[in-house]
Every structure is written in C-alpha cells, then in structure tokens.
C-alpha cells in the first residue's frame, strides 16, 4: 500500500489518497493520469493490468486500486 500511495502522491500531491473517494467520477484522475498510473503499477508490482480492470469501481480510491492489484496478483 505504501508503494501505491507513493505513486499516487507523485501524481497528485494535493490529494489525500487515504481518505479521498471518487477519484475517477470526480475527475481527479484523468486519462493521462490513468495511463501513467497503469504503467507504474505494472512496473512496480510486476503485473499486467488489462483494460477490463480499468473501471471507476477499481480506481475510485487508493484502497480499491490496491485490492485490484491483489486480485490480479492472485490470478497471476
């Protein structure tokens, strides 16, 4: 989780990712952020995030992103 928060805070230091929800639906993470985020997550966690995982539900909060990473790792 630390590692993920670090990536997120690099993208948006103005956001408190431990409490903020609706990252996607409120437009905090935009399309360019998602492209960066997906490539950083893939690199740092050594997983492939396929398009079907990129949904508002999976990216609306740091917690949700973390759970998605765990799901993909478990499938791996």
């Amino acid at each position, binding site marked *: 989780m630390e590692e993920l928060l670090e990536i997120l805070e690099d993208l948006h*230091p103005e956001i408190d990712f431990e409490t903020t929800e609706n990252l*996607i639906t409120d437009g905090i993470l935009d399309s360019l952020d998602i492209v960066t985020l997906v490539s950083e997550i893939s690199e740092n966690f050594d997983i492939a995030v*396929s398009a*079907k995982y*990129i949904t508002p539900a999976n990216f609306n909060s740091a917690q949700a992103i973390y759970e998605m990473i765990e799901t993909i790792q478990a499938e791996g």
Partner: protein
Amino acid sequence: MTRNVIDYLNRIVNICPDKTAYSDGSVSLTFRQVYDQSRALASFLAGKGIYKKPVVIYMQKSPAEVAAFFGTVTAGDYYVPVDDTMPFEKIRMILDNVKSPLILCDEKTIGDARAQGLDKEAQVLLYSDTLDTPVDQEALSDIRGKALDTDPIYIVFTSGSTGTPKGVCACHRSVIDYLEVLTDVLKIDENTVFGSQTPLFVDACLKELYPTLMFGATTYLIPRYLFATPVPLVEYMNRYKINTVCWVVTALKMISALGALDEVRPEYLHTIAFGSEVFPLREFRKWRKACPDAEFINLYGPTEATGMTCYYRVDRDFEDGEPIPIGKPFPNREVMLFKEDMTLAGAGEEGEICIRGNALTLGYYNDPVKTREAFVQNPLNPFYPELIYKTGDIGRVNERGELVFVSRKDYQIKRNGYRIELGEVEANVEKLPEITSAVCIWDNDKNRLVLYYVGNVEERPLKKILTEKLSDYMIPNRIVRLDKIPQTPNGKIDRAGLKKLYLSKRK
C-alpha cells in the same frame, strides 16, 4: 444563404422539434427545448439591455450550457465559455480581458463564482433563473434584423506565451463557412450521432454543436470521467449508438494503448475524425483493425482560422515513421507555406503554414498588438487589404502533393489535445515568490512535460501549489529542482542542454 448560425436552430425546430438534440446520457434537451430555452435567455438579455456584449458562460459541460450559447447569440451577444476545471486565476484573467457585464452559472459553479468574488466584477446569475422570462418576439426580431454575419459569436481562450491567455474571437460568417465544408467532408446527416469529447471552452466543439442544428442530428456530451476508463467509455458509445467522433488523438490513443479494443469494439462507429496531434501509427493501426469499415479523417487547424483548416481522408497504409498527412485545405481557404524570407516554399521545401480566406477569425479580443503580430497583410498582395494568419506551424508538401505537418517554430506544444505555450507555464511558475527561475521542456515521445526550476521550495509542495495556479493540462509530469538553470555561452537558457540532461536520466 445562411447569415446567422441561429437560422439553423430556427429551421430545425420546425422539422424535428421532439428529437433529442443534446444529451449527456442522463439529462437531454430536444430541439424544441433548446429553442425555447435560448429564446427565454435572449429575451432576458434583451430586457437587461445586454446587446453586442461578451457574456461569460461559467457552467459544467451540459446540454443547458449549449442552450446558453445559443441564447447568447440570439440576443446579439457573444459567448465566452469558461469551465469548472479552470483555475480561478485564469478565469480572472479572462474576465479582465472581456469585461463582461454578466456571468451565467449553474448550480455547481455559482458557489465558486461568489466565493471567489467574481460577483464584484460582473453580475453573477443562475442560467436556470433566466428561463421563465417571457419571450419578447419584437425585441428578438429587431436584433435579428440588425445582425451582420461579421458580428462575433464567441471568444475562446488559448494559451499565451507571456502567461496571459489570448481570446480568439470568431464571427458568424467564418463559422458558417467552416460548418458547410466540414459537414460535407464528414458526410453528416440526420442519422449522425456524435460523441463529443472536447470541452466546450475550445472551438473544437463547433464540430458537434452546430452540425447537430444544421441536420437535426444528435450529440452526446460524454462525461469527462469516462475518458479515464476506456472499456466503460466504449460501452457508453455502444449504448447510445454513437457513430461519429471528432476527438483529439490522445483520447483515441488512450483507448487503444490500454488494450480496450481487445475487450470491446465500438459497434456503430463509422466516422472517426481526429486531430490536434500526430496519431502514432502503432495505435492508429489498432483502430483500423477494430473498425475496418470506418472512415478515418485527419483534421488540422488553428483556433485562429475557425475550427479546422485541412483534412486528409486516410486512404492508404503508411510506412513506420511516416506521418499521416494533414492533406489539403477545406474549400474556400488557402494554405501557403512561407519561408523565413517570406517567399513561398518550393516543392518539398519547408515553410510556415499561413492561412488565407473567410475562415480567419476576427483576431484576439481586446489585444490589437498580438492580433497584428499574427494576422498580417498577405506579403504576395500589395494591392488591397488582405490578411493571412501565421500559424507558427512548419509544414511541407510531400511527393503526393499532400500537406504534412513538420514541427513548431516556437515553444508551443500539444498535450492531451490542448495547445500550450511553454512560456505560459514558465511565466506562471515564476510569478510565485519562492521561485527564481523556471524552464519547461517537452518530451514528445513520452508525452511528458518537465519543469526545471531554481527556488526555495521542494518539488512536491511546488506541484501542490501549481495545481491551484494552472489548468490541469498544464501541470508538469516531472518537476526537478536545480541549483542553477544551464545557460549557453551567450547567456541564453540552454534548452538543448536541459533536454540532454533529461534524456540521460529518462528510464
């Protein structure tokens, strides 16, 4: 002959009044509702004596915002769209420039407008509060009777290298001329269902908003957040049977690069116009494979020449590394390539893309100096007044006679479809008291904006400050603090040196 864009609305409301004109998926307006709302707003403005004035529309992208545009034009005024994603500082600079008597808001933006004290600069009103105004037919007929096609419709703001945005002001005649040739090339008709991607504060939205009125088509204003989630975005397009898109390349690229086209196919899409940036062939090929029967059209044009100037219907495959051409000008405008000495470039030679014709906008609003720099007398014509617009883009004509975009003359870049002057980012950073100097470089391969600075603030806190000062699309991806900015021997900023430094550290 159409001389006023509102004539399109007046005509179509009698043909298909009950058809959906604009929708975001949850809220929709029929042509009749758009007509009624715009006439109520226009009557309100006429009643207030607001005539031939800029009216700031500060609303979220919505069908109501579109109706507010048309209401403003019906009143003989011109709209100045700003947006809830813009930093307040930018909105204030825009207000300073246009000195609008009125700011129309929606329920979300009105609180911000008041909290930021915008109500001290102009009257702040809810758009919805104007809608119960009884229609003053006499006043509206009088306004329409006096209107000329050289009167302005809108002012949209684009990046300025000194830090102050420039307001490009366009008139009915240029917009009508553009719409007629554009809809012909895109083959728009009453069955067209647009999916609008661009914000309404840029001129790119002309491509959907007005053709919808001309043909009785329908436009879905796609919610912004969907552009961060490609599969739900394509599903949304399929749900509403969207068949025509005019998007910035970044939006198309995002869908294909994240692999969404392997999961879901845009089933109804038959016309894919793209522009604003170069489409990398690797991503373009994924799209062609996913939509083999669709027509792909590359569009090119600066805001200063009203929408798009050139188009190219993709009719062949390309070698790796070969750019997709920008083709040829739409009818009734000419592209001339001028070399440094202002003579025309010969076959295969590079030159600055300059544009001639009706399409030229009126210039930069309330800024004669910048207008005169960019809109100049045609150097080939000493005989009568005739302006050309100098784009600052370098182009050449290839062996097939197609125009190709080569590069920029200056420090303007395209990011996520937005035009950005690196100087605007730098000027805004240097305004901060903590900062001594700032230089931006652009990594075109990785689409990264990198800021180097000297100052008394750490990198992360600086980024935090910048999120309040700059539009989202101007926030640098990487911020690097330096002890001093490298200089060339004759004391200029060593941009090439910085770029080398950056590339040596890039993964």
